[in-house]
């Protein structure tokens, strides 16, 4: 896998971060708290300091001179961390991270402090409501099976498949768990839609690839990529869309005769939000989960200021 560049504010769901399990939709702050709490415990267990791995952050530069011959090169991921004791909380299972700066490996990490070590936690603005977390509703991903496929054979032998070449040049296949739909093309490329989480999307894509494999095609699983993520949430108060379109005219478009929702195109992160009078918000266009959360955190204070009294 290629090394991740330190990029603050982005989670890396696509590499199957173990923490993105059912708890993933909880608040970000407790998540960061959880990560903070994990770090002291795992750091204790590492007695020999390991050599730093590739993809170093600037702060880990200290550790460069510490490589020992017997330590193994752990190809893991280094997230940028403000303090010296670096931990990749999400990868404690995969790659026990370096505990630099401590000649005795068990340097405790109490100095983490309130400044969250993980840049995954956005600096939530004061008026953000920590109780509302957008729920992911749909994830679209693509993968390359990298082998030519005989769509008619697939449609005849696989279950739950539709193939109408006159209308659409792909087989539409569905599985029940995770409940998803896949478009499988003769080139070997596949689109997987309908999953509610990144892991589900990847798992579903793997299941489709397995079905294709079982039918006798040499299917591989190359370049899995999440192309779009859709989330939704409810701010629980009505919104004055007219006011919003007046003040944020460069970002909003509101045409009630065409569509009852205001279309807000946020620049950073590049997310499109559909904002409705009821207070329900749909966020789409994200490549990673963090973008959805960030976009909602950005829009919430704005929506609060346009609350209908």
């Amino acid at each position, binding site marked *: 896998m290629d090394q991740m560049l330190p990029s603050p504010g982005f989670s890396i769901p696509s590499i199957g971060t173990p923490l993105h399990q059912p708890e993933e939709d909880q608040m970000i702050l407790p998540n960061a708290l959880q990560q903070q709490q994990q770090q002291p415990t795992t750091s204790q267990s590492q007695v020999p300091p390991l050599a730093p791995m590739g993809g170093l952050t600037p702060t880990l530069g200290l550790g460069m001179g510490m490589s020992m011959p017997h330590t193994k090169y752990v190809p893991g991921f280094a997230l940028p961390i403000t303090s010296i004791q670096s931990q990749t909380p999400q990868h404690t299972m995969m790659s026990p991270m370096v505990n630099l700066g401590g000649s005795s490996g068990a340097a405790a990490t109490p100095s983490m402090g309130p400044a969250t070590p993980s840049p995954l936690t956005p600096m939530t603005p004061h008026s953000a409501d920590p109780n509302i977390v957008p729920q992911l509703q749909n994830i679209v991903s693509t993968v390359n099976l990298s082998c030519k496929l005989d769509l008619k054979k697939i449609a005849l032998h696989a*279950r739950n*498949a539709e193939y*109408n070449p006159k209308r659409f040049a792909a087989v539409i296949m569905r599985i029940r768990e995770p409940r998803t739909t896949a478009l499988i093309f003769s080139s070997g490329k596949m689109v997987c839609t309908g999953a509610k989480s990144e892991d589900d999307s990847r798992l579903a894509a793997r299941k489709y690839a397995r079905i294709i494999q079982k039918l006798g095609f040499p299917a591989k699983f190359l370049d899995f990529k999440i192309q779009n993520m859709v989330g939704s949430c409810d701010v629980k108060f009505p919104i004055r869309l007219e006011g919003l379109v007046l003040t944020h005219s460069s970002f909003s478009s509101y045409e009630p005769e065409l569509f009852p929702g205001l279309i807000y195109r946020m620049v950073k992160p590049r997310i499109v939000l559909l904002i409705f009078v009821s207070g329900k918000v749909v966020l789409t266009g994200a490549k990673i989960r963090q973008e959805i959360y960030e976009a909602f955190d950005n829009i919430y204070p704005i929506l609060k200021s346009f609350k209908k009294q």
Partner: protein
Amino acid sequence: MSYQLYRNTTLGHTLQESLDELIQYGQITPQLASRVLLLFDKSINMTLATRVRSRLTFKAGKLNTYRFCDNVWTFMLNDVEFREVQEITKIDKVKIVACDGKNVGDEGSSKK
């Protein structure tokens, strides 16, 4: 050309078996048997479209699998209940093979 769908029915199978028997006894040629089956296809399609009036509805507990290929739908249903005006029949497993009904109307009216 009518659908040869109905050859896979009780009526269709008994016809095919009778024809095979006649061919065995040398009383008809295979070519004649083939013509008979084609005529059977045309007749059954026309008859079902025009002369059959009864209506049956069904409701399944579960759609096990579906398939759509070559414009033919194949469904496997579980726990099905067929209902015809106060008479119900319950079946555990049902396979439905369905062809497009759009063309059938033309068949009856076209002249040979």
